[in-house]
């Protein structure tokens, strides 16, 4: 249905930056629509510009051309309409868990009683209410990312942007986090744009997987995935899952040949 406004609409987005005297095209010209309430992953080879792409959508770095619209409204600066989660923990080490989650609400001038209620709700949602008085430095990597998710959800953004949020975690924690994320996402019903280099992660989590090719980044293929939700880790074992996974692997591998030597 075309008459519905997409949650995120990217129109002919391009990024060129100068390195010394050279001009390097990081992103060629990408157009993409992310429908309301969908979980969309972007996969691509390392250093293909997918993180840059997400940072531009987040408004953190300037774009060279094109437009980004969130629910129809054009944006080019960071704002609480897009909740961003980073690969490395962006929790403030000088604030405890509770105050970290409350930070955005406090900045926006929300009154304390209401703020506390929201923080409690989200800390319970990510199952870390018991750790509210701890410092981030006292938590494991997986816990930190769950707190980050709670912090982002707390200020109720229109869309979630996630930049390899589980990239620094070990394989087992990663799988647990994926199941957690699916549960939390289903409860919050937000539109998500999720960047990863892990094909399994993308296929397991997403309604739509967008495959980027490397340097400069362009959209290579868009794949819809319609496994029943909630998905369990067993879905990895199905033939259908493996077929999709292998297909994406092939797509990326054609790429690797050209961009691997420069891999970041």
């Amino acid at each position, binding site marked *: 249905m075309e008459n519905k406004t997409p949650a995120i609409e990217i129109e002919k987005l391009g990024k060129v930056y100068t390195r010394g005297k050279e001009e390097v095209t990081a992103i060629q010209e990408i157009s993409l629509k992310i429908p309301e309430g969908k979980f969309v992953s972007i996969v691509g080879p390392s250093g293909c510009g997918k993180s840059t792409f997400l940072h531009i959508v987040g408004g953190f770095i300037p774009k060279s051309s094109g437009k980004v619209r969130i629910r129809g409204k054009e944006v080019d600066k960071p704002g609480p309409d897009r909740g961003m989660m*980073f690969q490395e923990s*962006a929790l403030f080490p000088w604030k405890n868990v509770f105050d970290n989650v409350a930070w955005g609400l406090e900045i926006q001038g929300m009154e304390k009683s209401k703020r506390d209620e929201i923080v409690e709700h989200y800390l319970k949602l990510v199952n870390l209410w018991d750790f509210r008085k701890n410092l981030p430095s006292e938590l494991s990597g997986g816990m930190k990312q769950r707190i980050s998710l709670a912090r982002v959800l707390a200020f109720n953004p229109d869309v979630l942007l996630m930049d390899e949020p589980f990239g620094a975690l070990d394989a087992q924690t990663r799988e647990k986090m994926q199941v957690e994320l699916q549960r939390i996402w289903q409860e919050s019903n937000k539109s998500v744009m999720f960047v990863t280099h892990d094909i399994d992660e993308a296929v397991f989590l997403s309604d739509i997987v967008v495959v980027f090719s490397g340097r400069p980044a362009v959209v290579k293929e868009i794949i819809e995935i319609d496994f029943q939700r909630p998905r369990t880790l067993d879905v990895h074992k199905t033939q259908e899952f493996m077929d999709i996974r292998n297909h994406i692997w092939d797509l990326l591998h054609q790429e690797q040949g050209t961009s691997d030597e420069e891999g970041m």
Partner: protein
Amino acid sequence: MDKRLQKIAAIEIVVLLAIWQALASLEWIPAYLSSPYVVGSEMWALIVSGELFTNAASSLYRSLVSFLLVMVLGIVLGIAAGFFKPVGIFFQPIVDVLNPVPKIALLPILMVWFGISDTTRILLIFLTAFFPCFIATKDGVHGVKQVFVWAAENMGASKFQILWKVILPASLPKIFDGLRVSLGLTFVMMFSSEMIGSSNGLGLGFMILLADMAGRTDLMFVSVFFIALLGFLFDRILLAVRARLLWWSENRG
């Protein structure tokens, strides 16, 4: 320093004082090296008469006013220079040229302009102690993780909120490193500015100068001991404040 090293330090000090006293009693060292007993009784006399405190007070006044100026201007300008690139570029050449200069060399010039006054001394102390604080603050700001700033922007923080609630706390560990160096220099320059230039007025440096001219080494030891004590004490205070403010940091010690 942990408890064990503190104990060792205390023992070492007692042993050194005992050796000094023994050598003095046996008259194995020249009389001008005095003895702990004489120095101690002189100090007591100066404490009772209040003379030590009046001198220490005017020295402290100069030091602390300068240090306050260093703290405020060093941190504010350091953050501005670290956060806003043009400000940083503007200050860089001044820092490059002035930082390695022995600021004490400016004393004769300041004396001609402002006389032999507290203005001259405070200015001299400030000029010396400013740079470590400024440079450390700027480095601290540069070391703040980009994602902290981005996360704050993402949550709708204004420029001022980012500076006050993210950049300042995140660079605080580095700022304290700089402040500690600045505080040390404050006392060095307090002493130096009182030593050079004039022999009248109040201050621990003057006490040394006067004692020197009278050949009273015992009084010199008293002043030296007191300057050392003040330096040590204020360093401890700074470390205590640091531990309080940086309770969250791994290197709060």
